[in-house]
Structure formats: structure tokens, C-alpha cells
């Protein structure tokens, strides 16, 4: 086991250790990378039944007051974010680079402000950037450091969760609300980052272990570590911050243009709008694509992508897709090569390996859209 003595711990640390997790450092936290069942088994269990993920390292915040100050930093149209709704959006720097991807929602009703969930590795920077943008504008960010966050994902997630929280059955994908689970007030949204139906559940830190144990007491639910979380999101074609997107990539390059609200494009009032709107009009030089290696060796992050003897990009996420049954990858290529079926070569251990551009996702999304 890695030396995790100096790392931050989530409220579920003791439970992870008790369940036999191998703990590793991730974004300054001691996190479970896998449990004794192993990544392959955890991945397949999530696709077939339900997996429980501790994502308490992620940043949770409550934003109240004038929302224009928040909107100015992101790509969403908050005026159409109704009570009980959630949106995936992007925090951009002044050059249109992606500072983070985040979820914004209104679980507390129309006048209750915004609940935001940001990535663990970027939360300090995100919150500082937001607070700086909010200063003097009547907007307040309160970090909810006293809350844990669980994700329950997979085809059995709805049956398990609504068995405990019947009112949550009314939620469809990207809807949210405040509910009671075993006497505890929770904020839950029907969302996740595995491509499966499921829920993300914010719980007071001191009740998190009790709720996690309750969910795990259902035989359909198994604990899942970061290893399988990564392979699940990669198969689902979802970007991992710091890998498939970062401050040097715009939403257009990252194939996330859909996350820029139409009205925001029309108003050209988001950070880096001039650059991004030009990229939308002219096309970017590089674009994120799915890549299917033809042989059995996975191409990992950092592998060069070659076309006709020329380096045309880089793999940003790569590994084996347990449900796909073969290696899978994502990366950036020259935009004229982004069409599915385009032949490529991936440099793996110094040798070119045949591959092709593939449609994303590798495994179909199974979100509950009602």
C-alpha cells in the first residue's frame, strides 16, 4: 500500500480500508483504486448491477445571490436551469481554455441558489477563481466541505436507490432534489460519470459511512474504486479533467461545444468567446476523438498518434475497455482526421500499432431519460 499517512481522507476512508481497498494518492486524497474483486470485475459489476463510488474528494459548493456573476465564468444558460434541474458546464479561462468541467443544479428550488460539484484536483483553483469573479457582485460561494458525495451507478441503481428514497423515482437524467434517506437529508441528482443510469448523492460527512453501509447492504451493490471509475468513463467517451481536457484546450477542440448554451453563443458573452466562436465557424486545428487500437496492446496516455508517417496528435486517455472487450482510447488528432474509420497508428513502446478513429461512446449510454 502506498504511504497515505499525510494525505487527506474522505469520511469513508475507514470503510474503504475495512473493505480491503488498495489506497492510492489522488488529488491529495487517499482514495481506493480498487477493492479485492479487481478493476475488471468492478467495472463489469457496475455495467451489470450497481457500483458505489466514493467521490467525496470532489468539491461541493453552494452559490447564492446574483447568478450573473457565475454565468459570466461558465458556458451554461442559468436562466433556463429550472428548479430540480442539473446541467453539465465548463469553467473557462479568459482565453477560452477549460479550467474545469462541473455540474450545476438547483436541488433547493428556484430561489435556493446553485449547487455545484467540481473536480477534486481543481477545486481550490476553481473556488478561488469563482470568488474573485463574484467579488462585489452580491454573489456568495460557500464550500460544503462537511459533505460527502457518493455515486451509485448501474442498471440496478434506480431499483436500489428508489427502494430507499421512493420520491427519487420521479427523477430523470439530469434532474435533482432534496430527499430523506434513512432519516438523513440528502441532495441527489440522477446523473453520474459512467454512462449508466444512476445517482450522485450528497450526504453530511458524519452520516456518510452509515448511508454507504446501507447501500452496500443491498446485494446488488458493490464498492468500486477509481480504477474502474476511469475505465467506465473512458468507455462512455467522457473527458477526464487534466487528461482529455485542460486549460490549453477549448470546448471546441475537446468536442464539448454542446456544453456552450445556444443563447450564450448568440450573446458571445462567455470567457474566450471570440476565439471559441471563430473555432466554431472555421473549425479547430485539432479535435478530440475516440480511437480503437486494432491489436491487443492498449495505447496509454501520452502515446503519439501517427498518420502517413506524421505525428498528428496524442493519446490523452487509453486503456482496456472491459465491457468493450478490447483496448480503447481517446486523444487529439488533426481535425481533418477526426472522421470515424480514419486509419491511424499509435506509437506503443516505440512501435507503430494500427488503429482507427472510432465513434464515441465505446459502450452505449444508458441514462434514464424517462
Amino acid at each position, binding site marked *: 500500500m502506498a504511504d497515505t499517512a499525510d494525505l487527506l481522507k474522505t469520511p469513508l476512508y475507514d470503510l474503504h480500508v475495512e473493505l480491503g481497498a488498495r489506497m492510492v494518492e489522488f488529488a491529495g486524497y487517499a482514495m481506493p*483504486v*480498487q477493492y479485492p474483486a*479487481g*478493476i*475488471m*470485475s468492478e*467495472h463489469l459489476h457496475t455495467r451489470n448491477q450497481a457500483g458505489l463510488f466514493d467521490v467525496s474528494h470532489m468539491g461541493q459548493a453552494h452559490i447564492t445571490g446574483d447568478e450573473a456573476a457565475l454565468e459570466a465564468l461558465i458556458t451554461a444558460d442559468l436562466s433556463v436551469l429550472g428548479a430540480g434541474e442539473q446541467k453539465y458546464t465548463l469553467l473557462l479561462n479568459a482565453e477560452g481554455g477549460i479550467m474545469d468541467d462541473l455540474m450545476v443544479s438547483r436541488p433547493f428550488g428556484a430561489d435556493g441558489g446553485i449547487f455545484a460539484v467540481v473536480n477534486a484536483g481543481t477545486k481550490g483553483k476553481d473556488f478561488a477563481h469563482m470568488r474573485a469573479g463574484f467579488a462585489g457582485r452580491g454573489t456568495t460561494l460557500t464550500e460544503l466541505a462537511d459533505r460527502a458525495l457518493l455515486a451509485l451507478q448501474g442498471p440496478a441503481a434506480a431499483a436500489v436507490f428508489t427502494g430507499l428514497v421512493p420520491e427519487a423515482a420521479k427523477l430523470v437524467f439530469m434532474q435533482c432534489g432534496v430527499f430523506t434517506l434513512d432519516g438523513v437529508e440528502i441532495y441527489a441528482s440522477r446523473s453520474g460519470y459512467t454512462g449508466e443510469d444512476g445517482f450522485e448523492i450528497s450526504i453530511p460527512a458524519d452520516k456518510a459511512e452509515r448511508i454507504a453501509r446501507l447501500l452496500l447492504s443491498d446485494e446488488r451493490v458493490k464498492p468500486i474504486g477509481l*480504477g474502474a471509475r476511469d*475505465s467506465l468513463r473512458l468507455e462512455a467517451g467522457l473527458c477526464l479533467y487534466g487528461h482529455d481536457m485542460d486549460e490549453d484546450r477549448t470546448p471546441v477542440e475537446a468536442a464539448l461545444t454542446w456544453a456552450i448554451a445556444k443563447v450564450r453563443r448568440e450573446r458571445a458573452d462567455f470567457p474566450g468567446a471570440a476565439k471559441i466562436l471563430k473555432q466554431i465557424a472555421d473549425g479547430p486545428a485539432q479535435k478530440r476523438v475516440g480511437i480503437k487500437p486494432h491489436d*491487443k*496492446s*492498449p495505447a*496509454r496516455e501520452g502515446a503519439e498518434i501517427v498518420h502517413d508517417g506524421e505525428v498528428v496528435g496524442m493519446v490523452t486517455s487509453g*486503456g*482496456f475497455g*472491459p465491457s468493450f472487450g478490447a*483496448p480503447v482510447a481517446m486523444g487529439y488528432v488533426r481535425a481533418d482526421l477526426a472522421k470515424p474509420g480514419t486509419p491511424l497508428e499509435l506509437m506503443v*513502446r516505440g512501435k507503430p500499432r494500427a488503429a482507427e478513429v472510432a465513434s464515441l461512446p465505446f459502450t452505449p449510454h444508458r441514462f434514464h431519460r424517462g
Partner: protein
Amino acid sequence: MTTRFTKDHEWVRLEGDVAFIGITQYATEQLGDVISVELPDVGKSFKKGDEIAVVDSVKTAAEVYAPVSGEVIEVNDGIEDAPQIVNDEPLAGGWFVKLKIADKGELDGLMDEAAYAKHIS
């Protein structure tokens, strides 16, 4: 028929002049689920310490180094088709290659089971 171990978690077991080579149980536990193994061509010679194979798991890739020098006389095709054998029985059916050993004296520099157990503890 003693099995010897390297600090890089390979094992080697001599049967006559033939050295069976694989990776240890500890190595498979660190790697997690093995999903592919790249094996060398039969007839190729390796010096002790050369990269002789590569193991990919869901999580990562790891090089396997020749624990002794010699010529590859057979590779385990079975693990190319069913790489999980490496996880299931790393010291038996999960062997990687058979080398015709060049110098049995090289075995003396490797760890026995007790020393290896201490190495990984």
C-alpha cells in the same frame, strides 16, 4: 527444481537446461487484471536484464526482464489467448517463455523463496 526470483518480480525455474520464466504472484497483484502479454519470438537470444516481454493490465503496462541469459525455445501461446491465466496461476500455467539457459551460474545471484518473501514484505 528450485525457483529463483528477481527484485523486479520475475521468477525462473530450471528443468534440465531449460529455464521457465514468469512473473510472481506479488507482481500480478500489483498489476491487477492482465489483459495482454507481448512475448518474444522463438529463437531470439536475451542477455540477463534485457526486456523479454511486456504485460498489460487494465491499469498499466510493465516490462518483464530476462532473469538469466539464453535463447527462447518456446513461448506460452496459451497466455496470449487467455491472459487471465497469468493472474490465476502465475507460477504454473502462467509462465511466459522457456529459455535455453546460457550460464547456470547466473541463478546464484537471484533470490530464493525466503529472500524474495522478505524483499516484498
